[in-house]
């Protein structure tokens, strides 16, 4: 019984980490007033960029350097998600395009891009003269999955807290940093002002467009790292088309569950991770399993309704969420 519980907690954390990156990124984005429905697409783009970077590196050298094997996928992931976020920002901030439509288009594009390169990378590289027959990034995944020291020596404590790759801890650190920056710094104050009421922020001298660009790009990069984590750590460096599934939308759901607070997002994502895999541990028949997999969404809907009924000031979405700001139209 006890080993099962430890294993359940471990798997919930592993599963939840992807969601944590996504929700932290989306919280940062939404705080600036951007409802970025492109996050699922950006997560795909982040993942595939990391895969492409890692694949290129693996092909080009005989012996991989551990540090580079870690940094190259990470930077290509960041670059890919940055470019994707820039498309979104350019369309919504500079060209005043509708946010929901832009986001959905970005998701279509991103999921397509991910699956396309995931499925064709081998063929494309063969066209360019490579002899690789599969995109096995297992050596890189091994670097990403390196556990903390002593993890095996500390019994259950080590298993629950120390047995993960560095990206699991990085997700928590990023969420904490996001919470600190949003709530304790001037930059965070300005950012929240931009999300709540851009006209007022503008009048106070806050550069609205710059804040929106910055928050959306940083948020996108954080979310993209969720995709990278999923590939390099969770699936051991093996890409499968649509394998990432609906995790991007779940991350957006998590933002509501966390009522736009990154710290609550940490607990929320592990909880969602647990709900996501609960069907493996609860003894129900095969045909009832989907009902358990429905739980995260149902929980989100319930939270959404309750926060709107209670209409407490602290638990509302940013007032300017989803609305573009154009100074001349005030």
């Amino acid at each position, binding site marked *: 019984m006890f080993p099962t519980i430890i294993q359940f907690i471990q798997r919930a954390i592993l599963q939840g980490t992807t969601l944590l990156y996504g929700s932290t990124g989306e919280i940062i984005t939404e705080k600036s007033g951007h*409802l970025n429905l492109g996050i699922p697409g950006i997560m795909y783009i982040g993942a595939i960029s990391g895969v492409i970077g890692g694949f290129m590196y693996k092909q080009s050298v005989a012996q991989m350097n551990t540090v580079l094997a870690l940094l190259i996928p990470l930077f290509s992931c960041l670059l890919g998600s940055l470019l994707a976020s820039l498309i979104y920002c*350019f*369309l919504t*901030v*500079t*060209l*005043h*395009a*509708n946010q*929901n*439509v*832009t986001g*959905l*288009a*970005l*998701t*279509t*594009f*991103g*999921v*397509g*891009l991910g*699956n*396309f390169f*995931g*499925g*064709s990378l081998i*063929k*494309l590289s063969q066209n360019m003269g490579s002899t690789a027959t599969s995109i096995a990034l297992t050596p890189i995944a091994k670097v990403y999955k390196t556990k903390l020291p002593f993890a095996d020596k500390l019994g259950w404590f080590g298993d629950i807290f120390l047995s993960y790759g560095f990206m699991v801890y990085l997700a928590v650190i990023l969420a904490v940093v996001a919470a600190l920056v949003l709530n304790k710094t001037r930059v965070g104050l300005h950012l929240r002002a931009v999300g709540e009421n851009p006209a007022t922020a503008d009048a106070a001298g806050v*550069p609205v*467009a*710059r804040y929106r660009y910055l928050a959306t790009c940083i948020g996108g990069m954080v979310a993209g790292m969720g995709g990278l984590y999923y590939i390099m750590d969770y699936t051991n460096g093996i890409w499968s*088309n649509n394998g990432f599934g*609906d995790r991007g*939308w779940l991350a*957006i*759901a998590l933002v*509501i569950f966390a009522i736009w607070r990154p710290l609550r997002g940490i607990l929320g994502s592990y909880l969602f991770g647990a709900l996501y895999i609960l069907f493996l541990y609860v003894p129900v028949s*095969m*045909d*009832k*399993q*989907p*009902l358990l*997999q*429905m739980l995260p*969404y*149902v929980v*989100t*809907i319930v939270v*959404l*309704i309750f926060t*709107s*009924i209670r*209409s407490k000031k602290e638990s509302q979405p940013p007032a300017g969420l*989803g609305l573009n700001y*154009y*100074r*001349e*139209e005030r």
Partner: protein
Amino acid sequence: MTATGHERNQSAKAHVKREPLFHVSKRDRIPLWKSITIRAVAILAALLLSGILTIFLTGENPLAVYKYYFVGAFGSSFKVWNTLQGTAILLGIALALTPAYKMRFWNTGAEGQVLIGCLATAFIMWKVGGTVPDGLLIPLMLLSALAAGILWGVLPAICKAQWGTNETLFTLMMNYVAIQLVECFLKVADKTGSNTVGPNLLKNGWLPKLGGQDYLLNILVVAVLTVIVYVYLKYSKHGYEISVVGESENTARYIGINVKKVIIRTMVLSGALCGLMGFLLVAGTSHSIDSNLVDGRGFTAIMVAWMAKFNPFFMVLASLLLVFLDKGASEVSTRFGLNQDYSEIVTGIILFFLIGCEFFMNYQIHINKSRLPARWRKEAVADKKEVQ
């Protein structure tokens, strides 16, 4: 925005007081030919970009690539019917969404509303099929599909009307509830674990083939629907109320419109139409169900409706364009051994361009002549004359 940001930077450096290179202002209205030109340019640019991308990936002659687009969409009578059917379904879902969007109700749940309509249809076919004649079975399927679609649409509407619950996120979540319910049905109905319930289990309740064509009935239903939705939005009292609520809820309240009632009523309609599309999909053509049957069209339809500015007749063109690209790109990917998802990249690119070109329809860019180098000025003036 760029211009204004630029302006501030400039004035901050007090010693270089120069006017910005260009500034942007809102247009009052735009003549039809101009908006068509802008869209055409955007579509051409997108095609050019995706063409370049294709050449880069395949190393093929660009003309061959574009030819395969037409072959893929209209290459044989089967392909033409396929394209028309795809257009009809996408258009139908976009039509279903239109009343809601005109009311500024961001229904991102069409995917789920259609899918639950599919599920209700398939469930009745599976459970009741064979025990009653088709004459009774088909109305029963239709009614349950409508009811299911309405339920999925009206729950978020009630919460929105009552407590102001965010409808974008609520309807989005309902999609996944629908998907899991379908998964559950698949496992209950088909014990082999094939993840799809096919025609062998759904034997009864198929809609009749008109003139021997599989898809004709669906196409006709959607064609009629296009006209009905147009008339409903443009000439009925309901349509008027929807557009007032969409423009400003306060105005609507002021002139005595019951906003809550309008929101709920419109979403009942929107959900019912989505349910109808689900019914057509299962009973009319696929005669099978799996959790990916709607295939993202619930989301694509949002972009169709929005790009067409909620005009049902423009929506016909928009959905035809997207389906054409989709079929064409998948032909290209088959021919060149690329992955099928190539078509989604092309769709994404064209959507970006169409979304971006809205800006040039809503706003006018004035280039500041004094900032251009002398030899360009003359041309800029000429350009401006052309624009006006």
